[in-house]
């Protein structure tokens, strides 16, 4: 139905900032993140009829973003391609100023996220960055809630070790 798909498209447009943020948390780089979001949006539109009205569009799209990223990450591993790590080398001056300090901290947090295993990173991204409930995050990842919470706990512990030690 064209009418419904128009409505869905405008809802998808409205969700783009969140999808970009989630993809950024997964990929570590905005250019990669935008590539992933673009692939995901194209896939979503091709399968629009698979979306169940009455279910959550955001969770459906986050799932497609996540799967697009997993496909890409696997392909990169096959190619043994080293990720461009420009972001990881990024530094923000000496700080001193509050905003510079905040930037530095944000940068440290993002760097720490990138060191997590994929499965922990996506759990943290869905719950602590995007704010999904456990049940929704588990659905996006296609795992039972218990698996989600243990990945989430391990991811947080690792982040805490990395970030807590520096403060």
């Amino acid at each position, binding site marked *: 139905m*064209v*009418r*419904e*798909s*128009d*409505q869905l*498209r405008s809802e*998808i*447009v409205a969700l*783009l*900032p*969140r999808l*970009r*943020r989630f993809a*950024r*948390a997964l990929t570590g780089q*905005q250019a990669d993140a*935008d590539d992933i*979001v*673009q692939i995901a*949006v*194209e896939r979503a*539109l091709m399968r629009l009829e698979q979306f169940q009205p009455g279910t959550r569009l955001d969770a459906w799209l986050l799932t497609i973003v996540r799967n697009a990223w997993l496909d890409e990450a696997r392909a990169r591993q096959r190619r043994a391609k080293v990720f461009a790590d420009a972001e990881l080398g990024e530094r923000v001056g000496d700080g001193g100023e509050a905003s510079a300090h*905040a930037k530095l*901290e*944000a*940068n440290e*947090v*993002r760097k720490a*996220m990138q060191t997590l295993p994929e499965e922990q990173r996506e759990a*943290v991204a869905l*719950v*602590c*960055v995007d*704010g999904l*409930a*456990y049940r929704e995050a588990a659905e996006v990842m296609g795992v039972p809630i218990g698996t989600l*919470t243990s990945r*989430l*706990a391990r991811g*947080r512990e690792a*982040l*805490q070790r990395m*970030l*807590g030690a520096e403060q």
Partner: protein
Amino acid sequence: MTIDAATLMAYADGELSAEERAEIERALAADPALRAQLETHQKMRVQLGGAYADILDDPVPERLLSAARGPTPQAAEVVDLSARREAKAKWSVREWGAMAASLVGGLVIGLGAMNTQAPLITVTGDGMSARGTLERALDTQLASDEADAVRIGLSFRTEDGGYCRTFELTERGTSGIACRDADGWDIPMTAAHGAQGDIRMAGASEAVLNVVATMIDGDPLDAEAEAAARDADWRVDSR
């Protein structure tokens, strides 16, 4: 009682029931070490949220917007306004503002390029109004008439009782809505559309129809009512 790490994390993530929360809060009150652990969780959430917060405010790249909007569906569609209304296709003030801003720019250029022809739309101090061929078409042409430079789409009444009609300027890739007032036809909106033409059989673009849905009172006029309104010169009599 002791609170395990998983339960404390669930508490920090807002996953617990009111009853469970009350239990944790009793334990927190009695246990400074537990409070410190909770604080660690909360700080981590704030840090993680903050680390990616800027992205939400970034302008979304154009390539993603156009990917999401996708290609224009080509198939002719039967216009169903009631379904559109149910879909609550309301326009926010911001969208209206953006459209108005892009319109003024587009129109000035459009009219400038076409200055060998009589203008069809003029921009006045308080909006736009129809002129020339467009004004005549709005006065007299029916949806069923052969379209020339102007194709008429839906005619309908608004909540304040006046008549409005959708139109398409066939040579300019523009469609819009015109509403009859004492001086002629006021044009509250127009929308440009691509060369591919997302014009439906009803003669209006998606954007136009979404706005019609927010303005219309009842159903669009049928052919008989349309002709009667035209014959009465679109005057609004007391109903």
